[in-house]
């Protein structure tokens, strides 16, 4: 099923709830820097703005399909069913974190829920996802691999090598290019040849003679349809596709890089902070995928305003509980550090 109109009300409401959960989770991660200074270490990257791309894509997956994104990875496991409390605990470096405090924000993992691992190095996880596609093909598991990465990754060799390999081997991988328009601090117009020529980034698919499509990533159902089609193609043994979901990251690339004991905070989005372009930010903020989807569902009677509010309240409670759970979770015992080096 790849047609959005065939989605049941129940499924649409589930999709809305997942989008709200991702947003609220990311808001709580961000607020940690002010509410609980010193709790967060290192670098956290948020997926607010990407909810349409993440949920639209993942709503097409079958239960055993694998999900392999990059380091901007908080949203996916939430949708896969990993408890928010264990994800938050990981980001807080706690014992009850999904990785026991060994990974942190950039390296969430829950292989039991088909979320094997993530890499913090741009584009390298595209190769890993391609290898997972090899496993699915060799072992004939019928799995499709959902590989997510940003626009910045499409300038890396790992992207080109992996898509070529997946194309020649017809691997069951859907490559979802989340074009949030900024690689870290650099705008896509400053570094992408297709963008400079006025072409969509999905044009890169032509280099591998595979399907490439660009959709409005702020429109969850558009993503659903395009990724659904690509997943069907993969499932039918016809090989990989590239789907570009174009949207806008609503927070900065990550928290500011500071050296302890200087506290770290989330700066303003790069459009404002680096480029001084408040109008650009405001324009995209007005296309918030959650606001748009809510209006649609309430507008067509799938959801009442009260029911939507109920979802939002429930999610707020869930994420507050996740924060409290993570804060209460003990730090790992120091000597644990030598575990897990080798199997």
């Amino acid at each position: 099923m790849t047609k959005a109109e065939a989605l049941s009300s129940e499924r649409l409401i589930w999709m809305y709830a997942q989008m709200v959960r991702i947003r609220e989770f990311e808001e709580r991660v961000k607020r940690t820097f002010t509410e609980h200074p010193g709790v967060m270490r290192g670098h956290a990257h948020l997926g607010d703005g990407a909810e349409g791309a993440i949920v639209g894509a993942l709503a097409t997956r079958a239960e055993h399909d694998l999900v392999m994104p990059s380091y901007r990875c908080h949203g996916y496991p939430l949708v896969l069913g990993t408890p928010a409390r264990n994800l938050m605990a990981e980001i807080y470096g706690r014992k009850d974190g999904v990785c026991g405090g060994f990974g942190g924000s950039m390296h969430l993992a829950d292989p039991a829920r088909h979320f094997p691992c993530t890499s913090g190095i741009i584009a390298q996880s595209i190769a890993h996802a391609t290898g997972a596609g090899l496993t699915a093909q060799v072992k004939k598991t019928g799995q499709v691999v959902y590989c997510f990465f940003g626009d910045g990754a499409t300038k890396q060799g790992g992207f080109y090598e992996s898509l070529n390999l997946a194309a020649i081997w017809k691997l069951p991988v859907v490559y979802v290019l989340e074009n949030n328009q900024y690689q870290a601090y650099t705008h896509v117009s400053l570094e992408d040849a297709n963008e400079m020529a006025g072409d969509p980034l999905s044009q890169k698919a032509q280099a591998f003679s595979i399907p490439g499509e660009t959709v409005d990533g702020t429109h969850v159902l558009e993503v659903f349809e395009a990724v659904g089609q690509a997943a069907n193609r993969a499932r039918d043994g016809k090989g990989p596709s590239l789907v570009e979901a174009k949207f806008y990251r609503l927070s900065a690339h990550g928290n500011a890089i500071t050296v302890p004991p200087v506290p770290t905070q989330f700066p303003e989005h790069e459009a404002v902070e680096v480029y001084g372009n408040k109008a650009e930010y405001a324009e995209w903020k007005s296309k918030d995928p959650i606001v748009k989807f809510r209006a649609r569902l309430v507008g067509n009677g799938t959801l009442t305003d009260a029911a939507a509010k109920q979802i939002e309240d429930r999610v707020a409670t869930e994420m507050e509980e996740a924060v409290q759970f993570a804060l209460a979770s003990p730090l790992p015992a120091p000597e644990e550090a030598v575990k897990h080096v080798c199997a």
Partner: protein
Amino acid sequence: MAREMMFAEAMAAAIMEEMQRDPNVVFYGQNMAMTERDPFLKRFGKERVRITPISETAEIGAGVGAAMTGLRPIVELYMNEFMLVAFDQVINEAPRMRYMSGGQVKVPLVLKAGFGFAAGWAGQHSNCLYHTMMGIPGLKVAIPSTPADAKGLLTAAIRDENPVVYLHHYMLMLDKGNVPEGDFIVPLGVADIKRAGTDVTIVATAWMVKKSLAAAEELAKEGVSAEVVDPRTLAPLDVKTIVGSVKKTGRLVLVDQAPRQSSAAAVIAGEVAEHGFGYLKAPVRMVTALDTPIPYSEPLERYVLPDEEKIISAVKSVMAKQSVGV
């Protein structure tokens, strides 16, 4: 039962046997299995034996992803230098996944590559790069010196649940030796005493084991009894066997084909300084390549690399308790 075979044959036997034993083992790389006549392709088919484009990041990275999800890939990389274009995958991906996931995933991956091709391959194809990989927690490095070890270590590497860089020396490929048939494992992390002796311990790897054994025969004629220890894996490193040998002989010469700076020899010397200082009767000597790139022309190449004569001279200086100036 053992059968005489070449080093290269011993490696092929290990891969063949492990692919036969375990359907999850896959084998791929560049310029391999190009025709139907390929013995691996014939036996295991196109799904498990694959030719790849010149794409090391995708080859090794796909190996990491495939290993995390249930296969046991062997990636044929031909030359250790070719890993450099994908070194992130070797150093910062494959050995990190298990740890970062808090022990949830494992990466049973073999990266197979030749090295040390001292036959006029010049600056970019003759290097010994194991020192760049032996200090990466989670990554194992195997470096066999005999056909039997070639098979046993490769079998162990394929069965290991962790990423293993398996390095075979080009100059040993045609060497023959007795290789046990059937299931034969040389455990990773166990050194082997290739020649017993009482006066001096020579620690060497790969081609340098062969040169050290030849040097030991010459020294025996002069009444010096040298023990030759081959660590066989540099990570994990069997410090215990090395220190045990030094305890017996009281003298240590380290032979390493890589340049001296940051060499495996220097690492082992450090371990012996910490754990075996009291046993030493003379200063430790390192016989390594000079700190230069590898030159093309034969006399230049010979000048740079360790050889029998240099080993013999180092042993003699150790026997005479001579220190060498910096």
